[in-house]
């Protein structure tokens, strides 16, 4: 069969640096072709190059893209505009920003129709919205994007892409910005549409779970090259390239649970509430509260890891911030090592700062760009009066750096000189520098590429065994929990829906929401 899209020897350069270096692949009608890779692999650039939408300063220096019989790079801009939206359509990663905020969604879908069909009938738009599962489409046609949820916006994007029945749909990380339950719905929608319309899909993603769920054929990209291409069945059973194997093994091993042990109690959180006031009216009286955390009770023992799981907006990060006293509690109590700490004054709480530490999500904003690695790690030690003389502090920082897998020569470098994974190691070194007993890990691996994620997680586990650390591990990613956490607590809308030991909760979830959440996690086929 003649392929629908054929990319041949595509090369993209920024100045003289090749970002995509001679890649070739083809996609047939009705096929989902996944281009998988981590950040910086050039997968998104490839998709933009096919659409000829590369940003200024990026040039296609070699290669050809053929759609059917047409060479896309040979078309004039006007001819290309007839291809965009009409024959190839695109869905982007960020539904929040990808829709024009000042136009109604109806008008935005109508724009494609008017452009390529000459007319935009209201009933066509409504039909499209209904097809992608927007409830009450007849009324919502006049809504603005900000009135819709993230998942609904992505549905509108899909409706817009499919409006003129394109031959090829390019989906660039279509679910990365969405919660796992919404991700499942969108993936199901895409699968359904692809079947009903016999659509070819170029799926760009970093998520092996999504690939396993969706793709017919897979190409793995790294540093601008395609390392291997294979059918799905073949790929997950016999990955050829070492890197592909690494990517596949970054996915959860479903039965790899931690062994349950007894833990002496360390932290006890009872019925804690964190409310943010809502003000209204002429005098800005407090008329109500946003209940970010609404009565949470948790316990963490010494050397234990409790995973706090929830989707965005569930209030899980606020719990961590409340324990750190970065947020005031409305009511409830927090006991640390037998002492009630939530009512202590700023000064009286100071000794506990040494014992409770934190690691944040974003390795790029968690370090002051104007301080050296030494200053960053030293800051806590200085503030809490640890480490003795300057000489002994320096020695300790060097030891710490080596322990987290960095080099002592990195001491005088600045954060921007390090990669995301290295920065997260520095953040870990900073936290353990004051010898804490409990570390709040707030999504420490979600900004990292999957191949690095595993390394950081094992470092955390090694440190737990060496130092007897306890972790409150806040995450939205259920896949990393089994071999990480002793116990799991699931949060939704500021409340705990279920908590228990990891094995029993994951294999036999009681609450409907937990079941829902677990079912939404994409999995690799059984035979892998």
């Amino acid at each position, binding site marked *: 069969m003649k392929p629908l899209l054929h990319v041949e020897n595509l090369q993209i350069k920024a100045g003289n640096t090749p970002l995509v270096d001679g890649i070739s692949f083809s996609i047939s009608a009705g096929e989902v072709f996944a281009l998988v890779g981590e950040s910086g692999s050039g997968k998104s650039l490839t998709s933009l190059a096919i*659409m000829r*939408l590369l940003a200024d300063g990026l040039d296609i220096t070699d290669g050809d893209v053929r759609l059917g019989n047409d060479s896309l790079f040979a078309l004039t801009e006007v001819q290309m*505009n007839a291809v965009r939206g009409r024959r190839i359509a695109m869905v982007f990663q960020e539904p929040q920003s*990808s829709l*024009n905020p000042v136009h109604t969604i109806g008008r935005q879908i109508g*724009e494609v129709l008017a*452009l390529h069909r000459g007319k935009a009938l209201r009933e066509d738009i409504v039909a499209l919205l209904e097809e992608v599962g927007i409830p009450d489409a007849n009324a919502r046609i006049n809504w603005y994007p900000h009135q819709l949820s993230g998942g609904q916006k992505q549905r509108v994007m899909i409706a817009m892409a499919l409006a003129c029945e394109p031959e090829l749909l390019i989906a660039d990380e279509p679910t990365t910005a969405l919660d796992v339950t919404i991700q499942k719905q969108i993936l199901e929608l895409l699968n359904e549409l692809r079947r009903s319309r016999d659509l070819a899909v170029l799926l760009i993603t970093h998520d092996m779970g999504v690939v396993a769920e969706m793709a017919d054929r897979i190409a793995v990209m790294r540093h601008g090259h395609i390392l291997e291409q294979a059918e799905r069945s073949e790929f997950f059973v016999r990955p050829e390239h070492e890197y592909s194997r690494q990517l596949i093994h970054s996915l959860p091993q479903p039965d790899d649970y931690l062994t349950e042990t007894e833990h002496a109690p360390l932290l006890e959180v009872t019925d804690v509430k964190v409310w943010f006031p809502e003000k209204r009216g*002429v*005098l800005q009286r407090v008329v109500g509260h946003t209940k970010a955390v609404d009565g949470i009770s948790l316990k963490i023992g010494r050397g234990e890891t409790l995973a706090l799981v929830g989707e965005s907006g569930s209030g899980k990060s606020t719990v961590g911030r409340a324990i750190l006293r970065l947020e005031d509690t409305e009511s409830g109590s927090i006991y640390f090592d037998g002492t009630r700490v939530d009512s202590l004054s700023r000064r009286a709480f100071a000794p506990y700062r040494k014992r409770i530490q934190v690691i944040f999500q974003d390795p790029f904003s968690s370090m002051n760009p104007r301080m050296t690695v030494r200053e960053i790690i030293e800051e806590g030690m200085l503030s809490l009066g640890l480490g003795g003389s300057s000489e002994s502090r320096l020695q300790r920082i060097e030891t710490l750096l080596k322990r987290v897998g960095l080099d002592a020569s990195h001491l005088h470098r600045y954060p921007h000189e390090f990669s995301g994974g290295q920065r997260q190691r520095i953040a870990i070194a900073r936290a353990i520098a004051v010898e804490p007993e409990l570390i709040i890990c707030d999504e420490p691996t979600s900004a990292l590429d999957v191949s690095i994620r595993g390394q950081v997680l094992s470092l955390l586990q090694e440190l737990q065994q060496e130092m007897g650390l306890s972790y409150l591990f806040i995450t939205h990613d259920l896949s990393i929990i089994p071999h990480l956490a002793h116990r799991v607590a699931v949060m939704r809308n500021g409340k705990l829906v279920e908590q228990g030991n990891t094995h029993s909760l994951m294999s036999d979830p009681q609450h409907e929401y937990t079941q829902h959440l677990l079912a939404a996690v994409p999995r690799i086929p059984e035979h892998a």
Partner: protein
Amino acid sequence: MLAYIVRRLLYAVPILIGVNLLTFALFFVVNTPDQMARVQLGDRYVSEVAIQEWKVQRGYDKPLLFNTAHEGPAAVTETIFFEKSLSLFALDFGKSDAGRNIAADIEQRMWPSLAVALPTFAIGIAVNIAFALFVVMFRASLFDTGAMILCVALMSISGVFYVIAGQFFFAKEWNLVPVSGYLSGVDAWRFLLLPVIIGVISGIGGGTRLYRTLFLEEANKDYVRTARAKGVSELTVLFRHILPNGMIPILTSVVVVIPSLFMGSLLVESFFGIPGLGSYTLEAIQAQDFAIVRSMVFLGSVLYIIGLLLTDISYTLVDPRVRLS
């Protein structure tokens, strides 16, 4: 919405009180009426009697805050603070130090100010937006760079030079329009032409550059990429997607000055001899007539605060995402 407006109006009260106290402190506490009288009467060795007479004539002879000579409410009302400062809240501007009725002057002179400022403002925005769009159309090209350097150069010229050059060439050398002066009614256009043109030209550099930045910021957003992926042509992207979004910050940033247009421009009005509030203020400054300066300060603040309120309201009109609460 209504609650919001009421609340904003209530917010305005402390600000106006602040302005009032500040001007009171500046004009009566830092410098006493005695000192003002000395400067006004010109002679350094002026007699004490003359000073007293000057003060009595203008009502500056009363105590500042509390009048011990009176009892009851009169102890508070028979003071400079009450008569000269608090009365401003009732828009009672009183008499100038030269004895003119300030309120009547303002009423008469705000129209010529508006006649210059409003067209300058409206045409200026239209021209700047048009230029900025044009530059954005050719963004990241040599034309763009050249246009921006030209804009910076235009910005670097003092407004005074624009006026001087304009008057010199248009009026003096080429005799196209009168140098200065003003007529009431429709005939005013001949006198308004040059100040408006000068006002627009002197704002082009800064305006075009600022609006270009705002449009470019929009041009780099994701929804523009979405529009291109739909097959929308570059020109349509510019006018249908970038322009309406870029207009939000532009509109809301210019709305704040609309009420202040009544105040006119000191520079333009005095150069062109337009009898507006700007030249009125300037004359007062040069004659050291503190009563007028005080009134204009207060009036300016009131107009600015109205402008702030209009800004907030204009947001709800142009941006569907914003609802007042």
